[in-house]
């Protein structure tokens, strides 16, 4: 019998908590290729999955890892892979395949310094826009980020749930600091975790149209082997799944991809607020920088500065309405990031003259500290 971990307290690093979150979400297949600082996710999955009748496989690279993950999901099993920048670049091809075929899966990118081999053991947030636009072609995407060990667990569960519900790949961005920090964490009781499974068809197989539109824009998904023989292709396809070159079918198909995500904005765009109610200035942060920002806001408050924080858990679709509301209320916002300004770009895009957007950037492989953010807040 596999050991029962639910309800017990552990000293876990972020990567390990991600593996546990995945298993709690129902993930039973993992394929990956070793890379710092993500390897501990693979290692823990190689140990844990066979305990719960799941399957782990180490593939020959990240292209094949995501290929195998998509294949397993097509056969009805919740699947995940985890990597860092160089591997995430290799995954872009099959990430697009998961988008166009609407196959649920979770891809974790534990960000390290880039480009190329970059800074393998240092944190960075340089892959944010790659997560949004890395694969070619117009496509909607869900990108989540984590800032603590407990979020590594809970946000992976959310990632699986959104992926299953909307039939999209979900990218989870972590970073080297979150991945390797150890915190005490109690794995929640199994029945306290909400788990969403994809909707499967309930019509007779001869009626099943695997890509037929409906009010949610998310067609039910049959697993291969369940009697609903159908075709899956990376070519743009019609409601039956067969390639089409008809402009009306192409447009309807691609627009549905966007519509299904837009319909879900309310639950997909996750943010966390701290001291925002009466804030006059605000920090917009995500990942490990949000931890520093939280502390900086507390420091500012103790000095009488009315500062607040919105932590972006969802980076894309960019939580525009929440951010805009804070912009209306504040005389300035600060976006600290371990890149040259990828989310501050988004903030500037949605700021139609409402406030002043300041950025604060570090790309030297060092975490942005609370004091640095506090000093920026004092200047604002």
């Amino acid at each position: 019998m596999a050991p029962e971990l639910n309800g017990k307290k552990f000293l876990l690093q972020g990567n390990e908590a991600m593996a546990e979150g995945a298993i709690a979400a129902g993930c039973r297949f993992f394929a990956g290729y070793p890379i710092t600082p993500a390897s501990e996710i693979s290692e823990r999955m190689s140990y844990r999955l066979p305990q719960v009748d799941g399957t782990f496989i180490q593939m020959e690279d990240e292209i094949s890892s995501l290929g195998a993950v998509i294949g397993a999901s097509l056969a009805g099993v919740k699947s995940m892979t985890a990597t860092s920048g160089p591997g995430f670049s290799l995954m872009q091809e099959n990430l697009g395949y998961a988008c166009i075929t609407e196959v649920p899966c979770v891809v974790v990118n534990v960000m390290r310094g880039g480009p190329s081999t970059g800074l393998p053991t240092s944190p960075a947030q340089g892959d944010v826009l790659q997560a949004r636009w890395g694969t070619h072609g117009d496509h909607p995407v869900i990108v989540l980020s984590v800032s603590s060990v407990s979020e590594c667990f809970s946000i992976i569960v959310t990632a699986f749930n959104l992926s299953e519900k909307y039939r999209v790949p979900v990218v989870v961005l972590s970073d080297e600091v979150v991945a390797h920090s150890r915190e005490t964490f109690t794995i929640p009781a199994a029945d306290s975790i909400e788990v969403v499974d994809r909707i499967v068809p309930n019509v007779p197989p001869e009626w099943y149209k695997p890509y037929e539109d409906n009010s949610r824009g998310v067609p039910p998904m049959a697993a291969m082997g369940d009697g609903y023989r159908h075709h899956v292709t990376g070519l743009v396809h019609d409601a039956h799944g067969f390639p089409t070159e008809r402009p009306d079918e192409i447009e309807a198909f691609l627009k549905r991809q966007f519509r299904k995500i837009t319909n879900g904005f309310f639950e997909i765009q996750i943010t966390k607020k701290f001291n925002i109610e009466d804030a006059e200035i605000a920090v917009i942060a995500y990942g490990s920088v949000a931890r520093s920002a939280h502390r900086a806001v507390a420091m500012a408050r103790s000095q009488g500065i009315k500062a607040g924080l919105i932590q972006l858990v969802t980076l894309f679709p960019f939580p525009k309405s929440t951010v805009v509301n804070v912009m209306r209320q504040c005389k300035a916002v600060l976006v600290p990031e371990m890149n040259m300004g990828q989310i501050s770009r988004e903030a500037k895009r949605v700021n139609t003259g409402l406030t002043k957007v300041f950025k604060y950037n570090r790309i030297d492989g060092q975490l942005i500290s609370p004091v640095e953010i506090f000093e920026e807040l004092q200047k604002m």
Partner: protein
Amino acid sequence: MFSGMTELRHKYLRHHKKFPHVWCPGCGNGIVLGALIRAIERLNLEKDDIVFASGIGCSGRMPTYVDFNTLHTTHGRALTFATGIKLANPSLNVIAVMGDGDATAIGGNHFIHAARRNLDLTAIIINNQIYGMTGGQASPTTPYGAQSTTSPFSNIEHAFSIAELAVAAGASFVARGTVYHAAQLDKLLEKGINKIGFSVVEIMSNCHVQFGRRNQMGDPVTMLNWLKEHAVSKDNGSSMPPDSLDAKFTIGILADTDKPDYIEEYKKIRLKAQRG
């Protein structure tokens, strides 16, 4: 009353949905598809239990036409998707069809690792010695000295021997056939699908349009005759690869070995893990 072949067509082809197909008249892909269907019929497999996956290329269109669980993946990656499907549901029969460029250029790494790993999959590689779909560029199996649209003066690279490569990489079952030797091809595919472990069937085929035309074999009959004249049956001697337009090459079964496949091995891993 339908003839046997008509019955098979009705049973296996998505005839009312996906025809006409994209292949040129006389293309060897149709012979491969016929052989595959006959092999599956003889093995008495349920259509629901078959997954037929492909990469990208003319060969990549093959799954579109048959009534299985079908999957048209990315270029070179069919075996990676097949790996995930088989591991997620080992009761499925997973067959992948690939072109020579698909399997040995962009997908070469996946191919040798799938062979090494020995997961129970069947890989069919249609070797037409050229990139067909993109217009006749040189592939890793274009013979030395041949003409192509990217070797207009002569190909100075040497051809991969796909079947021999599969043997060296550890595949449990390896065979080579041709679209001329159709009766033998049925049997090779049947054996390959039936084999537990990774099986490879390399099929020498004719692309008279993109390969033959530039190499004095511009029609299917000439190319089929070329296959007939250059293929020799495997005796007990060593195998000969199809690496030049003049040399003979071996057809038949090149390897048939028994070793535990990945699924069997992984069952043991689960037992160990669950013993705690």
